[in-house]
């Protein structure tokens, strides 16, 4: 299989404070590559640098150093102008961690969904757009008539996340970066929605990168897991390799502290 995404020595250093500047190394020279059609998870605890990595790949924040190549093109050097960026976001798109901040609060859900069509080259008529939007919402278990005219704050966190996922099924990109996409979705709905991501891969060969602190989710869904700790990727392998035979001490501790359903620590 061919490589679709290549990340080399990627780093992000935040400078905070005005008078006495302090540096935070959020992502520390990370390198990895992802094959076409692969489902890969980036797992790590809070503050380990997962979202920062995701946002750089989505071309939302500029790396301090390093290279990100999508289909051979350096996304920070080779893409210029509106049409290149439209091409990029049509092909690489995401579900963002904070489902509130990614919505314009004055827009209705219909507006939010329709804006996805701006990324399309083909011109669609209004009826086709409406039909596609409704189908996408139904896929994630939302009732179109109940949500289309609502504004983001009138939906629960889990519903907003599902709207964002529906938007991904509308765009059908080649690479999806999903940052904690189901963190607010109730357990009994979550599995069905995760399966939709797998279906997208089966149908059009989409590559998916899940970003999560939930090792259980990563274990279930991925072909490969990368463990991130303090800005670095410290270990990677298949789910079974990571879970049954963790190499790094941090991974071992992490796995030990995850509660299991079928065994108890205290009994």
């Amino acid at each position, binding site marked *: 299989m061919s490589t679709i995404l290549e990340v080399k020595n990627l780093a992000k250093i935040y400078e905070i404070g005005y008078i006495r500047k302090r540096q935070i190394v959020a992502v520390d020279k990370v390198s990895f590559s992802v094959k076409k059609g692969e489902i890969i998870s980036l797992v790590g*605890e*809070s503050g380990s640098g997962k979202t920062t990595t995701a946002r750089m790949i989505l071309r939302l924040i500029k790396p301090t150093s390093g290279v990100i190549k999508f289909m051979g093109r350096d996304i920070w050097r080779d893409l210029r102008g509106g049409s290149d960026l439209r091409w990029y976001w049509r092909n690489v798109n995401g579900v963002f961690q904070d489902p509130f901040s990614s919505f314009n609060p004055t827009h209705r859900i219909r507006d939010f969904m329709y804006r996805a069509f701006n990324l399309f080259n083909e011109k669609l008529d209004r009826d086709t757009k409406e039909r596609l939007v409704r189908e996408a919402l139904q896929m994630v*278990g939302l009732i179109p008539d109940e949500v289309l005219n609502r504004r983001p704050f009138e939906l*629960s966190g*889990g519903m907003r996340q599902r709207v964002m996922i529906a938007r991904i099924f509308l765009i059908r990109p080649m690479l999806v970066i999903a940052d904690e996409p189901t963190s607010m979705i*109730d*357990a*009994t*709905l*979550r*599995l*069905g929605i995760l*399966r939709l991501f797998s279906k997208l891969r089966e149908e059009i060969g989409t590559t998916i990168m899940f970003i999560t*602190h*939930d*090792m*259980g*989710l*990563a*274990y*279930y869904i991925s072909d490969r897991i990368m463990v991130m700790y303090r800005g670095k990727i410290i270990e990677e392998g298949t*789910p079974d390799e990571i*879970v049954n035979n963790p190499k790094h001490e941090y991974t071992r*501790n*992490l*796995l030990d*502290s*995850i*509660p*299991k*359903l*079928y065994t*108890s*620590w*205290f009994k």
Partner: protein
Amino acid sequence: MGYVVETIDLRAYYMLRRGSVKAVDGVNLKIGEREIVGVVGESGCGKSTLSRVLALDFIPPLKLVGGKIIIDGEDVTSIPISEARKRIAGTKISLIPQSAMNAIIPVTRVKDYIADVVKEKTGLPREKIVDMARKRFEEIGLPPIALDMYPFELSGGMRQRVLIALATLLNPSLLIADEPTSALDVSTQKMVLTTLYNVFKMGLTKSIMFITHDIATVRQIATRIVVMYAGKIVEDGPTEDLIHNPFHPYSKALMFSILTPEPEVRKRVEQTGGIAGEPPSLINPPPGCRFHPRCPYAMDVCRREEPPMIEVEKGRFVACWLYAKK
């Protein structure tokens, strides 16, 4: 053996202008001495409301609409609420509310905060309370120096453990902890869970009610699990039985949707599907069994009549027509 708390057909609604939210609707629950009861269910099913009601914490629009609450043998719903609250606060039922961690006043030192809270409940002198707190901190492995710190100087896990120490200072009959681990990183969760378990083993509280949406967490310490759906208890049974062999179709769906890094889970998940639909509105819940619109086994009777709670095996209670003779 007496019950530390017993509810009979308990109903508590949020009275809103557009209708009442039936968040606790006909709950029968008995908690005995030396039990850790895990209450699980998805967002909005009424877990926190149940905890507020048991702590007699009725803040409008929440209102007790029917049923009884019997605490240590006394029907506290037959006496004025303010009187009842005085009798139970701290010594009988002690509640750590959801997100309490963020609610601690940041400008007061931990010891002053504890002294304020406990003095209001008991009238004990401050020095005495701080002494008690120091002893309790030592007992449960918290550094006593934390008493002199401000809440923002403590990590999330430490803050949650301070709240556990505070909530058990007067050795209550029942400690209710509402999502005590949900906002924490996994490594800290384990620490808080251990503290809760120790508090129980040392007898600092007779029983614990542990509320969470995270079954894998609560099953670590719970002796018994209660599953709630849309304002009602649908299943109640010993932890191991319920985890390994859930009876109620909703409990099954819930259990089967849990993703933990265990080979059993991966295998199981590949075979079973999730369930369609969403929990219903609690203003106009569906008639009959509230799970019927999503239940793969729904029958006619389910749409018409509410299923009774049946003891299917010893200690295992289920409210579902599949198990009731009709």
